[in-house]
């Protein structure tokens, strides 16, 4: 393994605010190939897993990112007290509907939750967890919502396909769409 490449890649992941994809790293190191960079990332991730420090490298939103281990939460949360507000149950329910049934329009989300979700959609848009994907060719051209890369980053997901499967939901959803 090329040790100098490993440390360069590590420094980039360490300094980046967002998860870094192998492609992004490749663009910064044009003389290296993607395969090398991928291998180095996998090795780095495994190394930190073994090092038993307070942080690891995790694979999230198609990229790699350093983050602390969950057991240090109480101390860090105390330090950062005011930064992030928690999502309410209502917001989480709405977000999971968007995640599992995307692309989805507001009307359908409201049918599923049985309540108005306007304010919650606004909050989720504001937090960058959902986005506007387009418009449905229906009367009124309703807005279609989907999840974002930030959603993947926040919920520790590599990509949408790594969402835990909830088979029955998908089946019910499929029937709905055919109506």
């Amino acid at each position: 393994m090329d040790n100098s490449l490993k440390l360069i890649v590590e420094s980039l992941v360490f300094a980046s605010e967002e998860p870094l994809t192998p492609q992004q790293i490749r663009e910064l190191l044009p003389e290296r190939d993607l395969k090398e960079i991928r291998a180095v990332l996998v090795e780095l991730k495994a190394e930190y897993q073994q090092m038993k420090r307070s942080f690891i490298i995790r694979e999230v939103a198609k990229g790699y990112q350093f983050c602390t281990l969950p057991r240090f939460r109480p101390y860090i949360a105390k330090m950062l007290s005011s930064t992030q507000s928690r999502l309410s149950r209502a917001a989480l329910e709405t977000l999971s509907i968007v995640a599992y049934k995307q692309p989805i329009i507001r009307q359908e989300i409201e049918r599923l939750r049985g309540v108005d979700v306007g304010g919650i959609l606004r909050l989720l848009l504001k937090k960058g967890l959902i986005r506007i994907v387009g418009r449905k060719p229906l009367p009124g051209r309703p807005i279609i919502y989907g999840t974002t890369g930030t959603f993947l980053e926040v919920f520790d997901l590599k990509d949408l396909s790594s969402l835990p499967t909830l088979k029955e939901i998908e089946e019910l959803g499929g029937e709905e769409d055919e109506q």
Partner: protein
Amino acid sequence: MPFETKLEVFEGPLDLLLHLIQINEVDISDIPIATITEQYLEYLDLMRALDINIAGDFLVMASTLMHIKSKMLLPRRDDDLEEIEDLREEIVRPLMEYMKLKEAANELASRDILYRDVFKRGIEMNGTRGEEDNMNPAKVNLYGLMDAFKRLMKEKHPGAVLRFKPEPWSVKEKMVEIRDKLKGVKSLSFRDLFAETASISEMIATFLALLELVKTEFMTVFQEQEGTDIMLEVLAE
């Protein structure tokens, strides 16, 4: 009475129904409609008594429940039984879906959530972020754009009509026109200058052009005597 200990706040009718099904320990696919309807209505009464605003969605569900209940009390013919089944289905299906979605939400909530359970490296802000004035695209999300526009429309232009109105008369054009008119004649009366103006906007443009020309010392404006015509006279050239 299931709400004795504390009044729970339910998100919507499905949330309340699911709660009733759980505390009665009944199967979703075999809801005892009469009991559940009664408890559901009791809850709405309680909300009313406490002066809690009841959302329309709660009332729609209440009427569906009562409809099924009344059908069940009627002498049963075959179509009645069928209708009851259909109505039941109308409640059961969304409830099942809702239950699954709650599970999904719980699943999401149990993950290692960034900023709640795990944290990124605290990156020093100074110097690391690109300046605004560079070639890179902006780091903003759509919400920011929407919000900026909404704020702007609300704060500065409540109810403003935003159509662009073409302005047929420009001050620049009028300045050229006045210069042309003064060519050769040396002086011109104020009255003559406005003789051909057809609209207020044209008059305003002409007047502004006049002021501009005086300011640039191309010409001067004077009056021989009070009450006589105001005259324009070229200064330079």
